[in-house]
Every structure is written in C-alpha cells, then in structure tokens.
C-alpha cells in the first residue's frame, strides 16, 4: 500500500518489475547487527512511522495510482494505472501505442494476465502465490502479518547515504533485501527475485521522490534495474479511498474462457 507504484511495474509480465512492497506471512527475527545497529523490527517500524504511521494507513481502503513507465533502452514510455483495494484486489493496466495493452489483476483468488501481444493466461503455482502476496493491500506497513522472518543484514550505502539492510522472507516466497535510509527511515532500495512464466528474474529498484498524499508518504518515482536494463516508474497522481467499481477487479471474459477450458 505504501508503494502502489511498485505493483504497476509487475503489470508488464515480461519483466515482472519491482515488487517493492508486498505483504506476506507472520513471525520475524529480532536479530540485531553488532554495535548500534537497530533491530529489523525497529528499522521497519521506523519506516512505517516515517511514511505516516499505522493509524494513517488504517484509514485507507483503496487506491488509484496513475503514472508512466519509461524504458529508455527501447525508447518507450508506457502509461500506467493501478487499482488496488483491501484485502487483496488489484488491477494494473499498462498501455502504449508501441506495445498495446497489458493488464494484470486479481479478484483476490484468481490472478490473471492479458496482453495485446500474448493473449490471456491464468497464473499458477509459485508465480500465483507470489502475485497474490503482491496484491495484498496491506503491504510493508503491516509487515508483522506478512513475513515469516525479518533480519538485519548489515549496513549499506545507496546514493551516498548510509542505509540499514533488512532481509525479509515470507513462507514459500523469495527473500527480499530492503535498504532503509538511516536518517529518514525511508525505503530506498529493494533487491529480490521474482518468479515469472519465463523464469526467475532478479530485480533491483530504487524508490524515491517521496511525497505526502493525505496523511501518508508515497514514493512517486522508482528506478528499476532488470536484466541489465533500466526502467523508470513515475507516478503523476495517487488517490486514496477512491470508489472503484467491482467490475475493475472482475475476471475478464477471455480469462473466464480459459478457466472453463481447464
């Protein structure tokens, strides 16, 4: 929820772009790094507070984020719209004249993709599990309910600023390493591997340009590195608690046709 834009990237199935903040399992490690390094729990709680605090997030039921995904190496810019609602409904639409329309969504149970180029499909197995975690509205803010384990993995530097690294793992999920700015507490880098239909894809993303939207801070920009290439996601608007018709999250007819064929 704190970074709706991260879910937009995943709408392009070919890259399974940055899943910056997802929601996963339970329990966590209270492990501390040596010296004055805070615990993983403290680092994550500081992030939650820095972006608005749990009370602010509790008021949010849905979001509509709009922006663009730029792929400089291809000279292409794609318009993005991300609809999201509690508990785990999501629909992302990525569209451009160059590549057509790519949609990806879930009603909370079935997760599907549909694109102008490659048609429709229904996600299964590990990819489905990861995608459903990705769709959870309660993202990193409610990390205690999402991850099996969290642990400090030392310190790091991102863009010249010292950071704490935290490794988080959900049951059945891939570990992801998150770097939080030591001073601001904000998330500034994520590193993870995303299961996709094409294979596992390592992704590194750098969220930034945090702006206040209502009572919460929202990253408006994220630079994503995928397979040696760079994508830049920039949001132009984020609207919380907007009315989203159920039809937005409904399984499309051509996906229904695939399900009936099974």
């Amino acid at each position, binding site marked *: 929820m704190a970074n709706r834009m991260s879910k937009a990237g995943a709408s392009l199935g070919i890259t399974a772009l940055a899943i910056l903040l997802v929601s996963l399992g339970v329990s966590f490690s209270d492990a501390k790094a040596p010296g004055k390094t805070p615990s993983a729990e403290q680092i994550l709680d500081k992030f939650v507070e820095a972006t608005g605090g749990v009370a602010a997030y509790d008021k949010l039921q849905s979001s509509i984020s709009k922006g663009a995904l730029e792929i400089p190496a*291809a*000279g292409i810019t794609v318009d993005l719209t991300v609809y999201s609602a509690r508990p785990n409904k999501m629909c992302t639409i990525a569209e451009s004249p160059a*590549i057509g329309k790519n949609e990806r969504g879930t009603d909370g149970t079935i997760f599907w993709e549909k694109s102008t*180029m490659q048609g429709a499909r229904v996600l299964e197995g590990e990819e489905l599990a990861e995608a459903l975690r990705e769709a959870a509205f309660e993202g990193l803010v409610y990390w205690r309910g999402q991850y099996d384990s969290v642990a400090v993995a030392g310190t790091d530097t991102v863009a010249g600023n010292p950071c704490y690294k935290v490794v988080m793992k959900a049951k059945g999920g891939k570990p992801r390493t998150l770097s939080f700015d030591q001073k601001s507490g904000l998330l500034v880098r994520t590193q993870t591997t995303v299961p996709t239909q094409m*294979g596992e894809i*390592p992704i590194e993303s750098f969220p930034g340009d945090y702006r206040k939207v209502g009572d919460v801070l929202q990253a408006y920009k994220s630079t994503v590195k995928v*397979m040696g290439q760079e994508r830049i996601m920039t949001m132009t608007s984020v609207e919380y608690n907007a009315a989203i018709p159920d039809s937005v999250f409904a399984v499309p007819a051509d996906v229904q046709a695939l399900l009936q*064929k099974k």
Partner: protein
Amino acid sequence: MEKRLHLVGAAAIIIAMLISISRAACAQLTPEEKSLNLDSFEQVWTTIRDQHFDPTFGGLDWQAVHDELRPKMEGAGNAQEARAVLTEMISRLGLSHFSIIPADVYKNIDAPAKRGDRGGSTGIAVRVIGGAAIVTSVAPETRAYRAGVKPGWEIRAIDGEELPPLFPSIEEEFKNSPKKEYYLASAVRSRMGGAIGDTVTIQFIDGTNDPVEKTVTLEEKTGKKIIFGNFPPFYLTTKTDTLEHGIGYFAFSCFFDPITLMPAFGAAMQSFMNAPGVIIDVRGNPGGIAGIAMGLAGWFVEEKNIDIGTMRTRTNTLRFVINPRANVYRGPVAILVDGLSGSSAEIFAGGVQGFPRIRIIGSPTIGATLPSAAVRLPNGDGFQYAFASYTSRNGVELEGKGVIPDAEVRPTRQALLEGRDPAIETAIDWIQSQRYIVK
C-alpha cells in the same frame, strides 16, 4: 567483410539511408562534438562490457579493443570517421543486432515526408535468383504497379548501373552464410532507395524477354508507418486471404504494432478455424518484437507451458512461453520463410519448427536472432546492441545459422511470370496431404 556488414535484422531497413547521408557527415568537428564522440565511444564500449550476454566477448580482450580504438576516436576528424570507429568496435564481436544508427536518420524520422527525406520506395520487392535480380512482387497502387511492372521481370540496371556484375563477389563472400540472400537483395534495394519524390530509372527485361525502361518516382513505403522507440520506422502491412481448397492465408510485413497486427491475426485465425490448413507468410519480414511471436503461436499451439525458445542474458535464462488461446486452431500450419526473414520472424518459425502439425517452407532465414535494444548516444547517433542470445525450442542457436526449412523451395522467374508462388504451392500440397480433423 561479414563483420563489417553487421546491419541485419531489425536495423536492416536503414541501410539505404546510410548510403546517402555520408557527405554531410564529413564536416569537421568542433571540440564539443569531439568530446561527445568520446563520450559515445565510452558508452558503447561500457554497455558491451557490462551487458553483453557472453562475458568472454567471444574470446576478445575487450579492454584491449578499447585501448586500441580509443586513440582512433580521439583522432577522428569528422562524424563519419567517428562513426567508423564505433562500427569497428562493435564489428569485432561478429554478431548481428549491433549497429550504429547515424543521427541524421533520426532527423529523417522526425521530419515530414517530403523531398529530401530518406525513406522513399519503389514498392518493388526483389530477390536475386540465379544471378539475376528478379521482381517478386509489386505493391498494389504504387507508381511502379501502375506503370505495369510485373513479378518475374528481371532488373538489369538501375540509373545506368548494371546489376549482374555486382552479384558474384557477394555470392562468393557469403557462399556459406545464410545472410547471402539478404545481402544480394540489399544490393538491389539500396540502389532503388532514396528520398520520397526522388526518381529512379530502372531497366527491366520483361516477361517476353524484351528490354523495358521505367522511371519511377519514389513514394512513402506501403503500409502503416510504425515508430518503435529509437528504431528507424517500419511499415506494417497485413494480408488475409482464403486460397484454393479453403486454406487460410495470412501475411504480414513486420513484428510491430501489436494493436493493429494481433487483432488482424486473431480475426484471421478465427475465420480459419474450420479451414483444412493455414499458411502464415513471413517471407521478407525483418522481425520486431519477440513477444508477438509468442502471441501468434498461441493461436495454433494448444499445449501448455511450451516455449518457442530460450533467451540468455549474462545473468538470466528466460523462456519464451506460449499462452494457448481459448480457441486454438488444430489443423496443419505452414509457415513460409526466406532469406529476408529475420529476427522475430526466425524466432517465430524456428520456435515452432518440429511440432507435428507445423511445417516450415521456403529458403533459409537470415540467422540474426539476438534480442536487442537501441539507445541514443551523446553524439546523437543511435546504438543498437544485443543483450541476449537465443536458442530455439529444439536447442538450435539460430544466430549465424538461420532457420532451415523442412521443405526448401525458392521462387523461379518462370513461376513468377506465370503468377505462381512455388512456396505457397508446396504448402498447399503438404496441407492437402495431411489428414487432421479440424474442429
């Protein structure tokens, strides 16, 4: 020579443009331009160092390449010389899909179509058959079409330059390369190219073996103009037809503009659902977006979790997985290819080759299958680079080999003059020999 002639696949279309813009590129450089050229040199070298899918660079000492060529770039006196250094660097890799796209090409992309721009076309498609340049098709409603130019006519000379003497050296140089057909045709096409509104005088031998001279004014290329990122423009045409015995036929000119192409292909396949067979024609198709190849295959490959090949970057291996459509065509499918089918067209044909219901017919393809991207350099030029290798579903690395058809069939002058297409005839015969029950 092959290493120098690296502009294949997606970049092939710009060759004609490169030829006539060299004069402007000879102007002396300012200190700022020299600096931008050096920055471009470093960007090209670094991109390959960091992203080339083969960390051994094919056995090259990449640092040594830098150290050898950097002084040449520092000494480059004009844009053409600077571009030659960049081209020499990428040519050392000896792979397709590495090219330097002159900045002037981009100016042409942005400018309105008018005299002086590049991108003009006669609408005449050519293959070199038996040492002769033969017209294989003429785009309908073009000036050449209205002037009566016919398939099967031989092109003897263009603007007074005899063509037959050009071919032996190309034949010899590429005698063992799948790129031979491509370069032979390019030798003719480049001479017929120019700006929209330019004229080109062509001497033909017509169907009765009489000499005919036609002066043709170049026009905007046929089809929908497609601008895809930093690439030069492509032109999309599609053709849906029903041939004898009710066999479906679909042809298209490039793997771009999915918004237009995919619905057209989908509608065609829906209309062919009860046909005894389908022919998909990618002859002359230079490729484009690889994802389209997967999308097309989903219309006639029913099995789940099947891929049409594997892409390998330095760090990843990704499968080009097909998503079967809800309504899949279950009859025989013939895919027509030739020596001008490149890149995604090869991934498409080579990827589905071997399925029991699918047969590849025609002549070997270009053998240029590396996934690539194109970026702008500090000096304004474009830089196309491959970031991955590709292996077909059958485990064949098509780069440098091409797709070898199941049935090798080439056009002949006589057949073209008679209005026949031997590849289509072979496809029809094969489909007729199949006994699939199409539902």
